[in-house]
C-alpha cells in the first residue's frame, strides 16, 4: 500500500496521497504533509464518490475512472482502485500541479492495488 502511495507523493506539487474506503469513508493508508486533515478529506471524498457514482449511473455514462476538483488553493484528484469502487486512491495537490502526471501515477497506484 505504501508503495502505491509513493508513486503519487513523489510527483512535485502533491501534498499527500491516501487510500480511502468508499463504503465507510475512512482512511486505509495515508502519506500526508502536516496540516492536511486526512480524516476529513477521506470522509468527504468518499461521500462525493458515492454521489458521483449514482449521478453517472443515472446519466448512463458508466463508472468514473478519474475525477479532478480544482479549488483556489489546491486540487483533489481521485481514481477508484477497482471496478467496484471499494477503494479510492486520492491525491491532495497544489493548484498548479501537473494534472496529467498525477493522473498517470494515480492510475498506476490503482493498478498496483488490484
Amino acid at each position, binding site marked *: 500500500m505504501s508503495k502505491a502511495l509513493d508513486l503519487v507523493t513523489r510527483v512535485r506539487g502533491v501534498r499527500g496521497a491516501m487510500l480511502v474506503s468508499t463504503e*465507510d*469513508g475512512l*482512511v486505509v493508508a495515508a502519506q500526508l504533509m502536516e496540516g492536511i486533515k486526512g*480524516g476529513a478529506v*477521506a*470522509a*468527504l471524498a*468518499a*461521500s462525493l464518490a458515492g454521489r458521483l457514482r449514482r449521478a453517472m449511473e443515472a446519466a448512463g455514462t458508466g463508472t468514473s475512472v478519474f475525477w479532478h476538483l480544482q479549488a483556489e488553493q489546491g486540487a483533489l484528484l481521485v481514481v477508484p482502485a477497482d471496478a467496484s469502487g471499494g477503494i479510492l486512491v486520492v491525491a491532495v495537490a497544489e493548484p498548479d500541479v501537473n494534472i496529467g502526471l498525477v493522473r498517470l501515477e494515480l492510475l498506476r497506484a490503482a493498478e498496483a492495488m488490484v
Partner: protein
Amino acid sequence: MSPQTRAVESWTLQPLTDFVREASVRLVLVLTPSGQVLAQSGFSRAVDVMSAAALAAAIVASTGELARQLRQQPFAALSHQGPKTGFFLATFVTDRGTLAVLAVYDLDVSSLGLVQLFYDQLAADLKAATPKGAVPKQVLAADFERELTDSLNTLFGR
C-alpha cells in the same frame, strides 16, 4: 431548522441541527448516560425515543463497565454497520457531565467517516454551548413519570 429536530434543553438545538444537516444522519439522540434525552432528531414516535434512549444508555453502561474491568478509560465511540444502515454511539464530557450521542445513518446517504467527522464538531459545539455553572437537574423517583412525559411532549412538540 429541521421540523423533526427538537430539544428539551434549548442550547443543544443548533449544534444538533447543524450535525443532522452536515452528516446526513437519519436519527439522532443526545442523552445523558442515565438515558435522559436532551434532544432528538428524526424520531416520529415517543416510544421509539424511549426505547432507543434506554438501549443506548445500557450500551454506554455495559461498555463503560467492560472498560473498567479491563482497567481502561471508557470507550470513546462505538460503531455498528449493517448492509444498509449504520449506527454510531459516542460519549463526551461537558460542564454538565457526560453526554452521549446516538446517530443512525443510511449508508447510501452518509458514512462512518462523515458521521465521525461531524460528530467531533457536534461534541465541540455542545461543549461550547453548555450553560456555564449549571447543575444538572436531579429527577426524583416521585417526579420521574411527569418529567418523562414533559420531556417527550417537548421532543414531539405537543
